[in-house]
């Protein structure tokens, strides 16, 4: 285990965490402000990736593709909020889960209907392709560094938006007491549509950014959705800061656990068995982390104290 490998893996963990944050931020806002469990959040991620692939194929511009991804996901998000989600706020969580699960199926098959069954092509822009040599002789893909920077910039922007702007104040107020802010004359349904579209746009952006280094295919959003739920439970539901800390924790635990647990077991077990035990434990690591956090703080790291 060299330092170079260690630094590279920490960067990988950070990058993974930052992308999780873009997903988790929208999910935690929607859950926190509207009290809605939205399983279809992964579909918005997929829509972002497909929209980006389509725009990139048509125009050849990656920046336009990102803009297209955010616009498409936000529009679909707003539309879905207006037609379906709106009817679910007063229902209990089981109804919400059922309805948004149905949305997953509708979006998946709808996407197949439009784009076909085969994965689409979306590549990173040539200016960001290839590795870059960091101080210390560490080679790291340029695009992944850019992902870290973009993600941190969005996290900072979102924090400012929530703490400094009028809409941000309304969102925080809505989280605390939705009847009260409605009574104060805030158009609550418009606010909900806005929050939902904002979360959708972030998911779409994440889908497009990640789609460029992964496979743009049907159902790509569901695995990451599960991790995003783990993140918001660890961070505390409704808290943007919690989502950021939770994302980084999950990203680093998942990446470093996969590397170090098998190595650690090799110290006192034979290599083949150590690899098996270590890898199995590594895939459980984030859930063990979640369980640990919940025992220590039942509402999550930054969740409101009950």
């Amino acid at each position, binding site marked *: 285990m060299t330092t170079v*490998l260690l630094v590279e893996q920490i960067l990988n963990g950070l990058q993974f965490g930052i992308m999780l944050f873009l997903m988790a931020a929208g999910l935690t806002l929607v859950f926190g402000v509207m009290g809605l469990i939205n399983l279809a959040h992964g579909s918005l991620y997929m829509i972002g990736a497909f929209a980006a692939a389509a725009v990139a194929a048509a125009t050849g511009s990656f920046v336009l593709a990102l803009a297209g991804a955010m616009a498409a996901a936000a529009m679909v998000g707003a539309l879905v909020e207006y037609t379906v989600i709106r009817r679910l706020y007063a229902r209990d969580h089981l109804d919400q889960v059922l309805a948004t699960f149905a949305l997953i199926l509708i979006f998946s098959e709808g996407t197949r209907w439009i784009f076909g069954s085969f994965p689409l092509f979306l590549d990173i822009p040539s200016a960001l392709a290839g590795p870059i040599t960091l101080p210390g002789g560490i080679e790291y893909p340029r695009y992944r560094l850019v992902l870290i920077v973009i993600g941190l910039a969005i996290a900072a922007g979102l924090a400012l938006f929530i703490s400094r702007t009028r809409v941000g104040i309304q969102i925080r107020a809505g989280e605390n007491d939705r009847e009260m802010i409605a009574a104060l004359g805030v158009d609550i349904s418009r606010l909900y549509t806005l929050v939902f579209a904002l979360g959708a746009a972030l998911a779409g952006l994440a889908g497009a950014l*990640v789609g460029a280094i992964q496979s743009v295919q049907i159902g790509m959003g569901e*695995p990451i959705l599960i991790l995003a739920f783990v993140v918001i439970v660890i961070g505390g539901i409704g808290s943007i800061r919690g989502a950021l800390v939770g994302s980084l924790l999950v990203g680093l635990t998942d*990446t470093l656990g996969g590397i170090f647990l098998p190595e650690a077991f090799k110290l006192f077990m034979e290599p083949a068995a150590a690899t098996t035990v270590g890898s199995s434990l590594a895939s459980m690591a984030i859930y063990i982390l979640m369980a640990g956090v919940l025992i220590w703080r039942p509402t999550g790291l930054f969740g409101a104290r009950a």
Partner: protein
Amino acid sequence: MKIAKLALAAGLALVAGMASAEVKVGMITTLSGGGAGLGIDVRDGFMLAVKQSGRDDIKVVIEDDQRKPDIAVQLADKMIQSEKVDVLTGIIWSNLAMAVVPSVTAQGKFYLSPNAGPSALAGKGCHDNYFNVAWQNDNLHEAAGAYANSAGYKKSFLLAPNYPAGKDALTGYKRFFEGELASEVYTELGQTDYASEIAQIRASDADSVFFFLPGGMGISFLKQYADSGVGLPVVGPAFSFDQGILQAVGAAALGVVNTSQWNKDIDNPANAAFVESFQAEYGRLPSLYASQGFDTANLLISAVESADVSDADAFRAALEAANFDSVRGDFAFGPNHHPIQTIYAREVVEENGVFTNKIIGVALENHSDAYAGECKM
């Protein structure tokens, strides 16, 4: 002479046509979700062959298994009990095949596998009503190991998902690869980010990488690997390089060597006609899976032409004869009803702006599988 032969064939076909009322085929395959591309290709290849045969006595019932073993089992029961099918086919994934095939063959129905070839069904669990038209799961990986030897690789880094077919893959590669192993890494099934594995490859002293990551996993890995600048030669089975996904990988796959029992440039009349008619019918290049579906249907048609499906022994003998023009060229069944065939090494190239494969050599000639000896029929 030729006319006499034709007349005889026509006469035979007529007799067979009269004897067999109708053959009902149940196709259970994956038509929705992330793995749908494979099932759709198998179905399209199969239906193209049925259409070309012009026979109206072969009825095909097609159902979507959603890549779920429980649904596949329900569909098989329904097809056997209420649709009264004679032959089943279509399953893509080994775990689904393991759930469905043993009960189908135990009920006296025939099963023709167009894709999955788990080792359990090739060895001790073989059955005289089960025929695999594609390959035993290990085959293409064995060929990759053989190719790695001939390419002079001495130390390989191995990568596969942690599930039965992934373990079969590494076993297959190791069975033929004579060099050392730098490391064996099992990834999660469905994993999309390989940054951490690529960092391990970079830190290792391997001179080559073997990977088995079918479908979207392979797309992600290849794109990220190309971008990482590690640059060691990569070899793998055809599953990450089929026509359906190459366009999504793009230039990242160029020059990568992969092993396959079929490619569109195999030079025989059946293959040329298949590639041309598939493109004409569906407007895309056929994939490996489409070729397997096409061969499966042609095998079935050849058996229907010479035997009545209600006479199981005669029908089985007709299937065993494999008297059809495979698009792969020579094709025969081994004693365990799995193919004996040549496996090629292909390279990914760009032709007229489309990414596709080109054969660069033979990896294994007339190759059988490692489990045939354990099969007692």
